[in-house]
Structure formats: C-alpha cells, structure tokens
C-alpha cells in the first residue's frame, strides 16, 4: 500500500487495464501475505481464547470435577446460580469495587493528565507516574498488604502515632473493598492518565486559541472543549477499565482471599473458589459465562451511550 502511494499516479487511461490484469493474483497474494502475518496471532486466539471459550460454554452445561468426565445436566447450573446467595453477594461486592475503582481512577487520571500537559512537562516525572503500573499486580498487592497491616504496617504506625485508633484495612468488612479498590487505583492511575494524556495531545490547539479569544474561563474551556473532545478516549478508557475491574482477582487472592466473611468475595474469586477449591468446574464455567455476558452487555451499552466510535472533531 505505502509503496504504491509513493509512486507518481499512473496515467488514468492505463490504470483500469493494469488493475484488471493485476487484481486476481495480487489480491490473492495480498491475502496470502496477510494470512501469514495474522497466523501467529490466530494461533494464540484460537488456542487460548476461542477453543477455551467454546469449551467453557460447553462445560457450563455439565457437572464436571476435572478428574472425572463432564456429565451433561442442561441448564441446572444456571438455575442454581440465580438461587445462589453467594453469587448475588459476589455481584454486589464486585459492583461496589468497580464503582469505587472507576470513579477514583478516572477522576484522578484526568487530573494527572491535565497536570502532565500543562505543568509536569519533564519526561522523568511523566515516566515516574507510570511506575506503579510497571510493578506486577501481586507485588503491589503484597506491598500494600504489608504497609496497611493492622499490627506492623507503617500506615497504622503513623495512624496510632497521631493518636487515632488503628484501622483493620483488609480485615474489616467496611474497609476491605475500598482498600482493595484504592490499591488498584494507585497502580493503574498512571497508565490511565497516560491514555487520557494522549487524548489531550490529540485536541488541536486552535480550538483553545479560539476559546481564549472569546474570553472563556479555564473551567468553561475544560467543560466545553476538553471534556467533549476527550469523549472517544474516555469512552475507551471507561470500557477497558470497567471490564478490567470486573475481573479483579489477584489483589483479592493474595490479600483477603474473599473474606472477611464474604466482604471481598468478588465474582472472579468466587469462580476460582468454585473451580479450584471445590472442584466444581461445571458451576464455575457457568458463572464465567454469566460474567462474560454481563461484560459484553456493559461494553456494548457504554460504547453506544458514549458514542465511543465517533469524534466531535469531524
């Protein structure tokens, strides 16, 4: 493609002839080359996504303990899910987590992105914001687990030094989910800010110039120009972060493990517990399918609602 455009255009009268002769074989050759390039990705998609997904959907209609053979039981797993208190609890807990996580993450990320654009212009500071994201999830979780520990955590040491009562961040039912949400906000905010920052860079300068000529205040400029023009990026960020936070697992798995009581038994944790703890792979697959459908719906609604595929710049 690129090489073609670089050449001067061929005389118009010859072009149809050329393309007529060349279309068949060259299209085929392009397809072949395209397939060659797609092939490695296809292997991954088929082996690690497509086949397991289809098998997962099949298993969701079975009773399967992984050591025996799957036994077809129709929609029994699904009817059981709707009567399962722990499933509804898991959904409520997950949604609570998603809400806290998304609100704080997006607000902080926009704030950071604005700072990156107008104040913190040094590459060093911009890169430093991304640092938490470069640390593995589990490490981040363990780090905060340790720092927020009731007895020996530095945060509680400071709190008690200030004369305030210690807080069982991961141990109390009220604090556990907000704490886990906070840990993940801390880890992801730099990355999200980077995405928003890229969106900010894409907004043409002349719009701001016109706004300042018209005497618009900074707040007004932000709400009437920045936010609307940032919408496609925000839509993408929202879809990605919502789906990502629905799948929160590692932070919970290495800290509370679902407790106290059921306060942090998020849906992925519950699926893991059912499958690998209780060897109920059929039921766990059904839960996974339900989560899949929910996420697909959420993503669809968000894209529609936020018109994420069109920009106001056009």
């Amino acid at each position, binding site marked *: 493609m690129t090489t073609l455009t670089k050449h001067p255009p061929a005389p118009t009268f010859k072009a149809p002839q050329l393309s007529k002769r060349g279309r068949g074989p060259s299209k085929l050759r392009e397809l072949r080359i395209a397939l060659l390039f797609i092939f490695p990705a296809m292997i991954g998609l088929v*082996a*690690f*996504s497509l*086949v*397991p*997904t289809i*098998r*997962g959907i099949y298993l969701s209609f079975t009773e399967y*303990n*992984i*050591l*025996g053979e799957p036994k077809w039981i129709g929609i029994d797993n699904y009817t059981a899910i709707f009567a399962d208190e722990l499933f509804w609890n898991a959904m409520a807990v997950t949604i609570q987590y998603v809400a806290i996580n998304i609100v704080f993450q997006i607000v902080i990320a926009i704030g950071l992105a604005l700072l990156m654009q107008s104040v913190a212009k040094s590459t060093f500071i911009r890169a430093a914001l991304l640092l938490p994201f470069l640390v593995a999830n589990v490490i981040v979780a363990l780090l905060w*687990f*340790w720092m927020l*520990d*009731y*007895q020996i955590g530095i945060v509680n040491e400071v709190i008690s030094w200030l004369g305030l*009562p*210690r807080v*069982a961040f*991961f*141990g*109390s*039912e009220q604090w556990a989910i907000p704490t886990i949400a906070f840990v993940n906000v801390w880890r992801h905010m730099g990355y999200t800010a980077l995405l928003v920052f890229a969106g900010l860079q894409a907004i043409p300068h002349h719009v701001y110039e016109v706004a300042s000529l018209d005497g618009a205040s900074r707040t007004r400029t932000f709400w009437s120009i920045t936010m609307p023009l940032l919408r496609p990026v925000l839509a993408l960020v929202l879809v990605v972060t919502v789906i990502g936070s629905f*799948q929160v*697992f590692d932070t919970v798995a290495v*800290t*509370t493990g*679902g*407790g*106290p*009581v*059921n306060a942090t*038994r998020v849906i*992925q944790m519950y*699926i*893991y*517990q*059912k*499958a*690998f*703890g*209780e*060897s*109920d792979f059929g039921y*766990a697959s059904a839960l*996974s*399918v339900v*989560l*899949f459908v929910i*996420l697909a719906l959420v993503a669809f609604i968000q894209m529609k609602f936020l018109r994420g595929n069109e920009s106001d710049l056009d």
Partner: protein
Amino acid sequence: MKKTLGAVAAAAAVALTLSLSACAATPGETSGEINYWLWDSNQLPAYKQCATDFTKANPDIKVKITQRGWGDYWTTLSNGFVAGNAPDVFVNHLSKYPEYAANDQLLPLDDAVKKDGIDLDIYNEGLADLWVGQDDHRYGLPKDWDTVAMFYNKNLVEDAGYTEEQLGNLDWNPQDGGSYEKAIAHLTVDKSGKRGDEAGFDKNQVAVYGLGLESSGSGQGQTQWSFLTGTTGWTHTDKNPWGTKFNYDDPRFQDTIAWWAGLADKGYMPKLETTVGASVADAFGAGKAAINTQGSWMIGQYTSYKGIETGIAPTPTGPDGKRASMFNGLADSIYAGTKNPEASLKWVEHLASADCQDVVASTGVVFPAIKSSSEKAAAAFEAKGIDVSAFTTHVENGTTILFPISENAAKVDGLMVPAMDAVLSGKKDASSLTEVNKKVNALFE
C-alpha cells in the same frame, strides 16, 4: 471470563509441556526415578536422608523430592492429576484424600500390605484406619501424627503470678469458661498495665492478649476450638470417618463457639479483623499474646523465637472431666497413574518403616506414626530441652478425637469459613450456624 479460561488453558498447556518434558527426561520404567512431593519444609532434611538411605539399599531407584508450600501444593497436585504427571508418591492429607480416592487417582495398597506382610499394629492406634476409604481399600500408609496443646510465654505467665503447674491443670466449661478463662483474663494486660480481670481494664487498648487468635477455624477448628468442643461430648459428624450428617446445629457446639467469640468481645483475644495477614505465631513471638493453642507441628517455630521462653501445657479439661485434642495423621499415597508402581510401592513401604521414621524422629520436628519412633521423637525433643508431654498425653490417655473425614470437605469449608468468621467477628449469633448446618447437610443429600 476470557481471562479465567485463558489462565486455565495456559496452565493446562504449561502442565502438558511439563509432562512431555518430564517424559523425555525420564523414559519410563527403566531409569527408576520416583517423584516425591511434600509441603513441610521443616521435614525436608529428614526425608532427604530417608531417600539417600533408600537409594543405598535399592541402587536402581532414585527419589526426587520436591517441596511446595501448602497453598500451591494441592492445586499443583490437581493439575498434575489432570495432566497425568502427578508425582508418583506424595504426602496426603485427611481432608483431601477422599476426593482423590473417589476419582480413582490413588493406587489401592491392600495387595501390597498383604503381600509384603506390613504390620499395621506398629502404628499409633487409629492412624492406619484413617486411610481406608469408603470402598474399604487402603490409600495410604501412616507417616506421622499431631495433637494440640497450649504454647505459653514463660515470662508473661510468671509476671501474672501463675505457676506452670497451675497452667497445666486448668479447667473449662462453656458457661463461664472456668479457670481457663480466668487465666486468660489475668494474662491480658492493657496499655496502662491493668489486667483483664481488674477494674478499669480498657479492652480497646490491649497491649498483651491472654489468648492469641489464628482464625475462626472453619468447620474443623483443629487448633482453635476442637479441643474444647471435644470435651463436651459433641462430635463434628454423626460418625467418623465417612460421616454424612454434620452437627453444627448442636447447642453444645454453638455454646462453645459463643463463649470463644466472647473472649474477643471482652478484649482477652484479638478481634478477627486484626488477624488478616497476620501470623498468630509471630504475634506470640513478639510478646503480644501469652497463650497460643497450636498443633505439635509448630513446636520448632514456637521454641525458636529469640528472647521468648516458651513453655508447653496441655489443653484444659472440660465438662467431661477430661482433656481432648484433635488427632490428625498424614500418610504417603501413590498416584494411580504412576509409571513405576513397583518402585513407588517400595519407597512408600520404606517411608512407613521404622528405618525411615526413626530418621524423622531423630530430627525432632514431628511425631512419626510408628509407636517406637514416636518415643524416639519425644526423646529427641527432650534432648533439645523441649518437654512435649502436653502433646503425647492425649495419645497415652486416649483423649484424642479423630480429624473428621468426609466427602465434600472443600464444599463444607466453602460454607463454614464465612459462617464461622461471621460469628467470631460478632456479625452473627452462634445460633446462625443452625441454618448453615442445613446447607452443609444438603451437600450429602
């Protein structure tokens, strides 16, 4: 969902490649290498010695020992079963083996026991029977046992004016806790130095707790509360092993739990929420608790804290006038898919013999299953200056209760962990366990 399935697929793929490479590395029967897994790193040196001795006697068979932490041990083992590359021989647990046996993953050992004339009477009473499945087949040969006792901080006990005799002769009842609660209350000290049984004690500013708290103990309460419920005549299930009806609706059980949860309320024991991520043993080691009830496998850790002099006292006597302790025993099992059943069997028989169990005994880490080796272990502890009679008294006086063995153990746990957490943290009354018990029993219908 993609993520989960992807992870499973990835795990499966990794397992597959591993099994392939494992096959390539050890071409089946001829090399005679046996893979052996265990989870307790403290016992690794002893078993390495056993393996060396074994290879000396059987030069054709090599034993490769892998140690893996408890958390990873069981998931990796399950993956191994699915992928067909589980270790030939592995340390098995009473709460896990029923499921494996029901799914034909374990090699029955009956024929071998008969053929090789293994005397099951050499083991401490009851240990060998634990490993006979519902189908009357034997799935393991006993390797060790454990009971529960009280570890206490000698200095703190002395400061409180208690003698070691007094601490070893406490009594308990679910109504007022008896002299056991009195001791715990007196050992509790708040920040201003007031003891738990003195006027003006501030339960929100406790410096040293009388009793440490590990967790709510799920449905077994092995080290947390089973030594109390065991003295009330209550049993976990209608029969053991292979009970099909649990008794969490029994008032004797619920009264005990209510009393125990009350300790946290009175400030004599840490609140459950403060134990998340904390190690009960380390809190003891830091001098923040005077008494910990723990299993005998923790002797090494409890006696090695710097600056802490640790004593061991037997658990209190209960309403029936006797003490009680859960009696748990581990065993070695053979994977049904082993490529080398003959060699595996030989290794298991060696592990179950006095030759190996004496080696384990000499390290003074755990109590081996064989009676004579147990005595040697007690002597080895003695030589280290540790009096373990608080643990052995249960075996000598027959005050042990067997670890409850049933099907659906993981699912019972799934229900009981949150339910017990809710009661212990004061969110729910102990009577809420009646409702949970119905759900538990529904698993067996």
